[in-house]
């Protein structure tokens, strides 16, 4: 009770008003950046898992339009595929399955029967003994000119690049947020040192060590940053929940899922704690540095 109150009235400083809101904003941005990175990583993983073990072969419609020509080409391709080591299944997609795939782009009312669509063959392969795709593609094209093999790697690679770029940006935002927090706390602490110069001098005159004075600023910075960090995190969580609901309504397979695992939630919860610790240490070293330069 007697020693509960801090000796420096730092709560009355202007920093007590602006610092928590700035920290809240920074934690909000950092949390959203982290959620984006985590969602993107999850999406890549989902696509990677879903597509590994399958390749797609497209057999174009006959250029001459001769009846039965495309079916004959499909038969040749199927035979060739099933003769290939590591291929364990080959299934021609039905027209309605192809229509379902094209629906997001062409709409539900498109007249698919009138379009010269290629036939699609979904090929199951053993990922552990994947064939030489280039050689297989050449053999398929020889068997039926215009046949294309898509092992999804090019598309997945682009997705992976995008995910890595987003992760990099997220990391950059977190670093910038940390650096901004450090700069703000240094500014606020120096302001506090100037405002409370006479009280600090008195504390020194009655025997306070520099570390004692630094502790006052440390505790103050820790409290403010924690308060702001928690507010920022709560706003970020609300935003994530809102966006996740919007994604659910869109029901698009291309959008990342915004559901976080307990570990990911824990990573988000660490953000305000981490920024509070950064603020505390910054205040400590700023005070010790400034007081150390005094005579």
């Amino acid at each position, binding site marked *: *009770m*007697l*020693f509960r*109150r801090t*000796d420096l*009235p730092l709560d*009355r400083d202007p920093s007590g008003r602006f610092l928590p809101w700035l920290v809240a904003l920074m934690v909000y941005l950092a949390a959203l950046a982290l959620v984006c990175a985590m969602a993107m990583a999850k999406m890549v993983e989902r696509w990677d898992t879903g597509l590994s073990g399958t390749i797609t072969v497209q057999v174009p419609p006959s250029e001459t339009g001769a009846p039965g020509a495309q079916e004959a080409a499909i038969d040749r391709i199927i035979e060739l595929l099933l003769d290939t080591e590591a291929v364990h299944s080959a299934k021609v997609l039905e027209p309605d399955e192809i229509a379902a795939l094209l629906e997001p782009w062409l709409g539900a009312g498109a007249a698919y029967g009138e379009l010269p669509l290629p036939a699609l063959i979904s090929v199951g392969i053993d990922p552990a003994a994947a064939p030489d795709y280039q050689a297989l593609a050449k053999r398929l094209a020889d068997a039926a000119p215009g046949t294309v093999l898509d092992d999804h790697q090019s598309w997945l690679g682009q997705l992976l690049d995008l995910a890595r770029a987003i992760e990099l940006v997220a990391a950059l935002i977190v670093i910038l947020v940390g650096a901004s927090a450090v700069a703000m706390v240094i500014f606020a602490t120096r302001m506090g040192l100037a405002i409370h110069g*006479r*009280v600090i*001098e*008195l*504390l*020194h*005159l*009655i*025997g*306070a*060590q*520099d570390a*004692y004075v630094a502790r006052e600023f440390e505790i103050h910075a820790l409290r403010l940053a924690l308060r702001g960090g928690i507010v920022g995190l709560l706003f970020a969580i609300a935003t994530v929940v809102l966006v996740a609901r919007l994604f659910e309504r869109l029901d698009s397979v291309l959008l990342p899922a915004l559901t976080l695992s307990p570990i990911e939630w824990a990573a988000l919860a660490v953000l305000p704690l981490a920024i509070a610790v950064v603020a505390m240490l910054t205040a400590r070293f700023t005070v010790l540095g400034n*007081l*150390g330069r005094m*005579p």
Partner: protein
Amino acid sequence: MIRFEDVALRYGAGPEILRQVSFHLEPGSFHFLAGSSGAGKSSLLKLMYLAQRPTSGQARLFGRDVTTLTRGETALMRRRIGVVFQDFRLLDHLTALENVALPLKVSGQRENKVQQHVAELLAWVGLADQIHAYPPTLSGGQQQRIAIARAVVGRPSLLLADEPTGNVDDRIAVRLLYLFEELNKLGTTIVIATHNESLVSRFSHPVLSLSGGEVRMRTAPTAAGAGTGSAGRGSVGRGSAA
């Protein structure tokens, strides 16, 4: 306890406030520091409580040359010195109790061990019913007594008081000086800066007299009061203008 040899002090490029000040105060002594306003009493006290370092000369406290002290050592030495500031320097956002307890908190003492002691000390200076009051709500005399209580709460070896009776009437001033004498009897070395010659003359303690930036020692006047402290255990050296 305190040994100054040819000590001089100037602020920045300004004129010398103190020059060739030499004296020696024995442990357990009681001295007044007298001089007119602007004579340099506060500056001399600042050298004694380590708020300033001499521009030249040697100042020794507790056997240590003050110019060789590190920041950490300075802090530890200041804990052995109680100071009553002329402007009190109380913290307005702390209660009387918290203000008085501050030196104990700073020196790392436990709260449960100091609460009762601090309350008793406030009662000793006549502020038992004001322990939860904030300084701005108290009179100048009451604030001064809080400042005195804060200066003595850590049982310092050396007590320095800058005009400690400046805001109280003569009756309370004499009573406060009796409090200082009680402390002196317990072994605390006391230096009281005052320009109140009539008060000085009521106690039989030697006087360090400052004039024109120089110091000379006056022997203890015949006490009109009951002063019986350890007077006379000090000397002024060659550099003074005695």
